[in-house]
């Protein structure tokens, strides 16, 4: 399917093809005006990159977070999703949701939260799952990089739950 750039003609086609789906205004909004599209430098030690795929439909999603290493706060989020409108909307929504969150809280964002707030139809629930996976994947990547960088000296960040500290 299409990247977020080719909106207009695809949007019309999308509506026609998916007339049966009741698209919520939120999905349309996130599809028409996706937030936080783009990339962050993978090599930055404070950037966590998650790339996930939906095997049932072939959609792919990349989500990146820039985490403040002193506070654990997610300062910047970027995403790129190729696939159906609901996948694009889910990832756009997910980036908005986790921006400003502590990285350990972002890990807890559930696909059901995303699906509920976007009023995704049952057939598109897997798109929200994709977004949840992408968040977890990006957080894990950041944690892995941090642990590798600090070795056994990864002290907890202010407010971080003790069992979340990775050494």
């Amino acid at each position, binding site marked *: 399917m299409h*990247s977020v750039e080719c909106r207009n003609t695809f949007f019309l086609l999308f509506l026609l093809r998916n007339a049966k789906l009741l698209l919520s205004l939120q999905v349309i909004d996130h599809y028409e005006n996706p937030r936080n599209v783009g990339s962050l430098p993978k090599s930055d030690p404070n950037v966590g990159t998650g*790339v*996930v*795929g939906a*095997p*049932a*439909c072939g959609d792919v999603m*990349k989500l990146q977070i820039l985490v403040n290493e002193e506070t654990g706060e997610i300062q910047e989020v970027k995403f*790129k999703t*190729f696939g159906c409108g609901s996948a694009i909307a889910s990832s756009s929504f997910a980036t908005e949701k986790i921006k400003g969150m502590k990285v350990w809280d972002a890990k807890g964002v559930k696909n059901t939260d995303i699906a509920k707030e976007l009023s995704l139809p049952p057939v598109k629930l897997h798109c929200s799952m994709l977004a949840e996976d992408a968040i977890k994947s990006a957080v894990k990547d950041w944690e892995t990089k941090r642990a590798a960088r600090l070795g056994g000296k990864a002290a907890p960040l202010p407010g971080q739950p003790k069992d979340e500290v990775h050494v």
Partner: protein
Amino acid sequence: MPLLSPNSPNSPTQKPSHCGAIQPVHPQSSFFTILGFSDATFAIDQKDLKLRFHNLQKQVHPDKQAHLDEKERIYSDKQSTFLNKAYQTLRSPLSRAKYLLHLNGIHIDEGDSKTGMSPTDLMRIMDIWEAIEEVSSKSDLDVLVRENEERIAKEIEILAKVFPEGDLVKAKEATVRLQYWNSLKQRLNDVEF
């Protein structure tokens, strides 16, 4: 060779560890038998499939059944719909592979995002999508199309080999990969110059 018949050396009833949570294939698989195939196999001749479909359509299409009473016409309508569905499913390698997996109790879902794919593989797929966005000439596009067709051909080759061998783990992995290439193919079809 019939796909996973109970007497085959690759039957799941004889090698359960090889096949994981697979149920034995019912040899009377519906989409195959309606088209007159005695076995559910991945290798199918497209011309033969089309011929079978058209011949059968002539027999069951509702338009040809005006002389039947209502009950029989409804029945014929259901037959025709089912026949259409069978043909559409079997004519495409991806849907055919998914159907064969389904007959073996295997379904591809969200949890299978890593089946046959590493994070590096997924990154590579993202790169290909981005390359399509950046394509600026017909010749660039042709290269991307050709490369994708090669990937598709490779998976079809794998599937034609592993399904008769009864290796459903490999079949599932190849089917997952084929789905990704298929999505790319649809995207490439929409690029115009």
